């Protein structure tokens, strides 16, 4: 890496990664964070409001378009935020060859869980009774 090269700094930099999407990760982490502030507070308040209520009451709540929509938005923002955050944690602390595999595994887990949660919400929302 340190061998002397008769190249300009620009010549060395060209081709070493993208110079256009560097802030994308940072920005999306913030956008999802801002989205999660009202969504998680709404979710926490809804759970508190349903403390001790039985299954039909809870299902009736989750079946309303507002609650189902909010839950789906929460799942999207939550798991996107988690995928971005966990990726940084892995990149910071894992330096072996496992790193690449761990990054892929964590992304797949996050999006798989998000879809599982969304499908469950939709099943409740559209279950006819």
């Amino acid at each position: 890496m340190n061998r002397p090269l008769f190249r300009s700094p620009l010549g060395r930099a060209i081709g070493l990664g993208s110079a256009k999407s560097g802030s994308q990760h940072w920005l999306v982490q913030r956008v999802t964070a801002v989205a999660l502030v009202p969504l998680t507070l709404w979710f926490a308040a809804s759970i508190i409001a349903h403390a001790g209520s039985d299954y039909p009451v809870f299902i009736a709540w989750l079946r309303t378009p507002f609650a189902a929509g909010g839950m789906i938005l929460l799942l999207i923002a939550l798991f996107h935020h988690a995928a971005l955050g966990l990726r940084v944690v892995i990149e910071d602390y894992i330096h072996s060859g496992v790193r690449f595999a761990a990054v892929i595994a964590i992304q797949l887990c996050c999006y798989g869980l998000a879809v599982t949660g969304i499908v469950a919400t939709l099943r409740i929302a559209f279950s006819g009774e």
Partner: protein
Amino acid sequence: MHIKTIAPATKAPRPRPLSPNIQIYRPQLTSVLSIANRVTGILLSVGAVGLVIWLSAAAAGPGPYATVQQAIGSWMGRFVLFSCTFTFFLHLCGSIRHLVWDTVHGFELRSIYISGWSAVAASAALTVAAWVAGLCVGGWL
């Protein structure tokens, strides 16, 4: 003629001092909260798996939902849920601090300590408030 070399190439370079190591560094509120934001983020990701299990159980029907509710209602379940509540509020308050910093505000040492202790106090207060509200609504209090 003998030529004196200033830095012989054969000599191994002296190991350079590294940045402050975590083992010999006195913990401060700033570093502890920085680490805490990361740790709470990881813990909440685990908690998010619980959310999906809970939703899936609700979608599966009253039987599976009752099983999950029973697990949450146990002392162990309540302890985990209580820890999750505090973890959530600490991450929320810590993240709001970060979002404020992103606007290039509050970087003075005094502001950093005020916002740090405020985040800790707010997380504790919000956790207690949420649980008192939940226990009241549920009729346990």
